[in-house]
């Protein structure tokens, strides 16, 4: 096979590029080259044996590709659908350690399961209280792109170093790009210990 046969030569490039007949011709010439010598036998609908075979191969190939491909999508996406979040109450520590008026960073180790592996992860949560009896727990994960925020006393707010966001003490956005307040956990106090549950 000569690769160059189809490439337009410089001097008649225009005609072969624009004249559909010229193109059609080159294609059918190629077909004529490779068609079996006998006349193609057409059935009632005018489909040749070659077309019929090409189509059946395409249909079977498509079926096999789908048979592997569709399960493969589920297989790849599988663990993403798994719930790795914690549905249990997590103990953070003594309620007395939370200073009224100042968000206090409390840590807890949580077990996280991903596939066949369980790992221990440290969870950091800002716990706030005004009166020492009712508590709120804010995630320290910035609601913009997930950097960790820290409490800055002088500014009376949470500061995110990544894109200079500031959150108020109650977690609402004071300035910067975050689209929503800091996430909140459910909180309960039992035997003067703080427990949280929810998003993680």
């Amino acid at each position: 096979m000569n690769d160059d046969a189809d490439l337009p030569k410089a001097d008649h490039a225009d005609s072969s590029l624009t004249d559909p007949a010229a193109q059609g011709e080159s294609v059918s010439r190629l077909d004529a080259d490779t068609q079996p010598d006998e006349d193609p036998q057409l059935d009632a609908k005018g489909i040749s044996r070659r077309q019929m075979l090409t189509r059946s191969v395409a249909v079977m190939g498509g079926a096999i590709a789908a048979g592997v491909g569709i399960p493969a999508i589920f297989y790849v996406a599988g663990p993403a659908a798994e719930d790795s979040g914690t549905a249990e109450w997590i103990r953070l520590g003594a309620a007395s350690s939370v200073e009224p008026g100042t968000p206090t960073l409390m840590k807890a180790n949580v077990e996280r399961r991903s596939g066949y592996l369980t790992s221990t992860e440290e969870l950091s949560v800002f716990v706030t209280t005004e009166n020492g009896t009712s508590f709120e727990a804010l995630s320290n994960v910035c609601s913009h792109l997930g950097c960790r925020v820290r409490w800055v006393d002088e500014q009376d707010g949470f500061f995110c170093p990544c894109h200079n966001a500031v959150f108020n003490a109650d977690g609402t956005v004071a300035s910067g790009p975050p689209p929503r307040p800091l996430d909140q956990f459910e909180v309960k106090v039992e035997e003067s210990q703080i427990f949280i549950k929810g998003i993680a």
Partner: protein
Amino acid sequence: MSSKIGDWVNERSGWRNHYAAIFLRKIPKINWLYTLGSATLFTMTLQFATGILLTLYYVPEPTQAHASVDYITNELTFGWLIRGLHHWGSSAMVLLVILHMVRVIAYGAYKYPREATWFSGVALLLLTFSFGFTGYLLPWDQRAYWATVVGTRIGEVTPFVGGSLKSVMLGGEEISGLTLTRFYGAHVWILPAVLLVLVGIHMYLVIRNGITAVPKRNE
């Protein structure tokens, strides 16, 4: 394939010539036994697809290998299917490659000018076995372990080089985490790379020399 897109691409790549050379080439009147090579090629493609998918979860590390295989088989959605296809596909491929070779022998298709096709085929046969041998260790269970013990001891009786052959295969004097990682590296990188090159050569030679006709008794 005379669509507009096909034309557009053809004008810039001439792919129709190659398509015709590969798929529309003339062949003698042949029979179903001539499909065994293509069947091997198909199984190979399936092994590539499912094998690549398995690497998304498989971990070639002694404390995790078996747990990851177990997770794929018993917990992951369709993991049993992907692993099952790869597992049975490997046996099918060994079987098909042998049947294909038997057809080539029976029809004398290895003769001039197809000796090179035959030689590349011998390399492909050995490669197919190597895939099976290295892949067998990866589930890291008792069967895998002892099969590799036996397999490498067979290698050990090779004259002169047997001892070093075995330690190179094992990455030491006995099976360890190093054996697992090198079998894995061979199974997913070295062997596939060599296989692709050799299949390319094999297919080039098949197309270049044309396929043999069914031999006749009075020839």
